[in-house]
Each structure stands twice: as C-alpha cells, then as structure tokens.
C-alpha cells in the first residue's frame, strides 16, 4: 500500500504546537499526469546505467509501498518533533 498521509507535529517548550497533515494520496494526481515523463526518464537512466528498467521500477515501487509505518520522534529540552507516515 502506498503512503496516504504524513503527519508532522512540532511541540515547543513555549507551548506552541504545530500539526500538519499532508494528504499524500493527492500526489497521485500529478504523478499520474507526469507518469509518461517519469517512465521515460527512468528508462533513460536505467539504460545509461546498464540496469534492468523493470527490476529498478519494481524496487522503487517496493520502497514507496513500504513507507507506511515509518515513525520518527525526536525530543530535546521539552521540544518534540514527530513525523509519521500512514
């Protein structure tokens, strides 16, 4: 499953909270529009690097699909930053 949402939370000691929901699923629209160009660029790069375009595409897709579940939290001196990919 591709990532559908990213959540960014910033909490500062001053009591300021910042929360941002990024609807990653909306990126499908520009992605689909640019797909022919992306595929052409990928084909050119893989052929130039003497790699199998199909295997490279598969590997990139696998990376994209395995992003959900990633969670990064950093806390220091009362400040907290959280990034979650859902």
């Amino acid at each position, binding site marked *: 499953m591709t990532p559908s949402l990213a959540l960014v939370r910033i909490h500062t000691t001053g009591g300021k909270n910042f929360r941002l929901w990024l609807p990653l*699923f909306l990126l499908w629209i520009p992605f689909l529009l640019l797909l022919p160009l992306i595929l052409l660029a990928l084909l050119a790069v893989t052929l130039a690097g003497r790699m199998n375009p199909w295997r490279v595409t598969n*590997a990139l897709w696998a990376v994209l*699909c*395995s992003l959900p579940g990633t969670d990064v939290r*950093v806390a220091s*001196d009362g400040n907290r930053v959280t990034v979650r990919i859902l």
Partner: protein
Amino acid sequence: MNEHRRQILDMLAAGTINADEAERLIAALETEPEAGAQPASTRAESTTSVKSGAKGKVKYLRVLVEADESMTGMKGSTTVNVRVPLQLLRAGVRLASLIPPQAHEQLDEAFSKHGVPLNVSQIKPENLDELIDHLEDLTVDVDGKDGNQTRVRVFCE
C-alpha cells in the same frame, strides 16, 4: 488503499471526525490484526516470542538513542526514536543490489571517506534476513567526554 483506511479518510474529509480521531482510528487499524487476533492473556507471551526472534512476525526495526547534552551540544538530554518498517529495509537492500558492479568501488570509496567502511557488494537481501534473525535486542553504550554516555538500542518488534 485499504477499505477501512479509505473510510477514515472519507470521514476526515467530510468533517465527521477531526484529525486526532482519524489518527487514533488509523493507529488502531494498524495494531488490530496483531492484537485483535488473539486473546489478551496470550499477548504478553507473543511479544516475548517476537523478541526471541520468531521470523515473519517482526514488522519494524526500532532505533532508540538517548544522548545527554555533552554529546549533542544541545540543552538537556535528547532522545531519538525511529521506527522503520522491515519491509522498507528489505526494499532498500533490493534497490542497493541493483547498483551496477562498476559503481561499487566508487561508492565504497565515498563511504570510507565519510568514515563508513561499507562494502556495497556485500549488501544482499539474504544478509538482511540473517541480521534480523539475530537482532533480538542490541544495546550500544557510547562513552563520551567527562564520563557522559549515549545509549543506542536497536531491536525488532
């Protein structure tokens, strides 16, 4: 996209639920298949079995870093808690295995210049599986100046 997740997103878009509720629902959805599939009394046991290296059950690699101010140069202690899906590691290793052999030497040189003695040709998916099998709970204590310490814990869950 998962049907339940889509429903939650639809409810969020329609304003039926707020962002907090959506987050809680999605988090519950993620844990449901593991936790919901068995009675509560056996959950503790299964967690132990996961830690003892039951292959196929572990889903994430967790890296916890606790550093005090002398190590980071920042005020107060700093904690970093990173959870990475093992699938992502596997996919990354698969991607790394596609690097053409002629580029391996250049990459190895670049890594060693930055203090990482890594041999790219040794990165193979089977090596990762072996590593995960043996990675139960690794703790590394790093001694810093003035006896201060940084603790790094790496484990699969």
